[in-house]
């Protein structure tokens, strides 16, 4: 019995860090989503405070501006009873020329039990994880991965569709520069999704097809909508260093997700957006606020997923430990 459990129970303890979705198996992902489920219900509790991580400290090291992800992690930590230490790019000594490793060692010297990092350089969380003993959670690194976003998206999709397996998922926008897209591609492909990437040609280079099986690139949004179960709209940045900007008017003309275009998808298709949205640019307000939109559910699910991850990575509890949210609500 024990042996069966060992081989089939996904062990989240194995990966000490959450650096990306790419290293995770479908079983590990399912485990995280299952663990997030009770935390989802917990958000509706009148008293949103657990003692699970009491006495633990989570360092929030945001080397790049972030509002929603930082607040989400801070709130998740608080609701688990943990204290947080905040480091923000604007006020940090990075401005004074301190290197990343020195900043991180300084943080570590204050003895946090885990560190959440957002950084503009791809690979920065791995750079830190190789040098620290404590768990590192990637809250978005450059154009590499944003694993907690993909997990909260998956939770949202699973809630609405009942399953993750075999869905047609269309991702719209600047895929090349999107860490959200990469993490979602890795995650959804673990469950056999058929992925359609759609956007201006320079944002959907053919090398993206190497990320996972069953990826197709489409430059016409009408074609990309066909048979879609899920439409993910990415944020569009008009300006990037070292790259000539494209015309935003053109983008709206060809790629904005409008009610009419959304009608080309399956009738029960859902719309996701990692936020922050720019109404009237990548998405028509009527879609953002419409019945198919899951944008606010995503935000709530973000808390649940991050609580599950902090609980398992920071508490050091075994994978089969009693679920803290179940204990209190029982």
């Amino acid at each position: 019995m024990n042996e069966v459990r060992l081989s089939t129970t996904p062990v989240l303890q194995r990966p000490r860090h959450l650096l990306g979705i790419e290293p995770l198996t479908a079983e590990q992902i399912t485990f995280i989503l299952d663990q997030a489920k009770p935390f989802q219900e917990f958000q509706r509790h009148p008293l949103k405070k657990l003692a699970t991580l009491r006495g633990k400290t989570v360092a929030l090291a945001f080397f790049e501006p972030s509002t929603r992800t930082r607040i989400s992690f801070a709130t998740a930590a608080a609701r688990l009873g943990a204290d947080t230490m905040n480091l923000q790019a604007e006020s940090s000594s990075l401005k004074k020329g301190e290197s990343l490793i020195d900043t991180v060692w300084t943080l570590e010297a204050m003895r946090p039990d885990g560190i959440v990092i957002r950084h503009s350089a791809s690979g920065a969380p791995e750079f830190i994880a190789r040098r620290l003993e404590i768990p590192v959670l990637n809250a978005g690194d450059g154009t590499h991965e944003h694993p907690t976003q993909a997990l909260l998206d998956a939770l949202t999709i699973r809630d609405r569709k009942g399953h993750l397996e075999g869905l047609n998922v269309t991702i719209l926008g600047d895929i090349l520069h999107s860490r959200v897209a990469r993490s979602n591609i890795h995650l959804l492909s673990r469950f056999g999704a058929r992925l359609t990437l759609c956007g201006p040609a320079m944002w959907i280079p053919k090398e993206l097809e190497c990320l996972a099986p069953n990826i197709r690139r489409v430059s016409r949004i009408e074609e990309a909508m066909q048979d879609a179960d899920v439409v993910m709209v990415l944020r569009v940045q008009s300006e990037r260093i070292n790259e000539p900007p494209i015309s935003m008017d053109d983008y709206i003309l060809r790629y904005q997700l409008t009610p009419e275009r959304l009608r080309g998808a399956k009738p029960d298709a859902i719309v996701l957006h990692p936020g922050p949205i720019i109404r009237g640019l990548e998405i028509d307000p009527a879609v953002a606020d419409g019945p198919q939109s899951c944008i606010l559910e995503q935000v709530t699910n973000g808390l649940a997923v991050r609580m599950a991850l902090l609980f398992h990575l920071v508490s050091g509890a075994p994978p089969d430990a009693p679920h803290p949210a179940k204990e209190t609500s029982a």
Partner: protein
Amino acid sequence: MILITGGRVLDPASGTDAISDVLIDGDRIARAGAGISAPDAEVLNAAGSIVAPGFIDLHCHLREPGQEISETIETGTRAAVAGGFTAVCCMPNTQPINDNAAVTRSIVDRAATAAHARVWPIGAASVGSKGEALAEIAGMQDAGIVAVSDDGRPIATAKLMRQVMEYCNSLGLPVIDHCEDTSLAAGGVMREGPRSIRLGLKGIPAASESICVGRDVEVAALTGARLHIAHLSTRASLDYVRAAKAKGLAVTCEVTPHHFSLIDEDVVYDTAYKMNPPLASRDDRDALLDGLADGTVDAIATDHAPHHPASKDVEFDRAPFGITGFETAIALGLSELVHTKRISLMRLVELFTTGPARVLGIERKLAPKSPADITIFSPDHEWTFRAADSPSRSRNTPFDGREFRGAPIATIVAGRIVYRRPTAAASA
């Protein structure tokens, strides 16, 4: 006098491949042949080893003057001789840039007192390597430069390249170019391809190199000058060089050991894998292997680019480009090219000796009256490279801990044994 006995002498200039002795008298080779008797000479037993003309590295960075925290002429050349190099050409991107005779003289003078190998400076093509005015090239030539280059960046425009080529042609100097279209490469940190997409690292397309090689070949055809392509890394670039050679143009190229040993798929978030040009695709690397075998590639050059650990121990995006290379060059050549049967030992020796010598317009041979610059290496000696033990001031190499078959055994510069492998079985 030094008598090197029993080694397998490989001399590409004469085609010699025989077990033979070499007698050195002063700073010159006195005799080469079987059964030399010289009772007074110090004997260096080279049985089981290859005795070759001294290796020349066409491309390195010694960081002096100005960046002595990363390397000096003394430490850099100590690493060079440990890699079997008897002469190294140092690029001008020092601080200040070697764009005038005073800086050239300071390097030459420093080398005269501190260097373990011969140091042959390369001067900047333009003032400050800024791509505007021509540097004091004739003055630097009198002070000792052997070529010009704005290495670290390309010679900025076709117009400037034309001027530099015409001028250097009249001076008898080769023009070396770091080929890169900087608009295509801007912000990139590794080769553009599936791996860069996966890692989310900004890619440098392969075409950014070949566009510039194509331009340079056209200007070489226009001027008839000697053009040498530094650290060539793509199939398309090699095709330009091959076509130029077929037309009889004086175009040559070098390839680094890391570009024929590693590919972009090897890149991880470790700044020891960050160099410019970046590691190429498998297809481009295979083309380099073909070019090394068929003679299109003239030389193996290290692009030894030391960076102090503090500058490399940062995020991938923020790290400077470049890795060290002196001590692993011959071992990588043996491991990746000779032991894999892609090229012969003679061809490998050519790529380190007569090949680079031809680029510089000089001779390299093991013959009486030639300078006693000799590299002795074992094709089979097994060892593990430890960056921590390197004489270099820097440790930025992806080959730390790598096990090799084949190693430098002894290095002789101007009749002096400047390096001997500790505990090497083949040395006396």
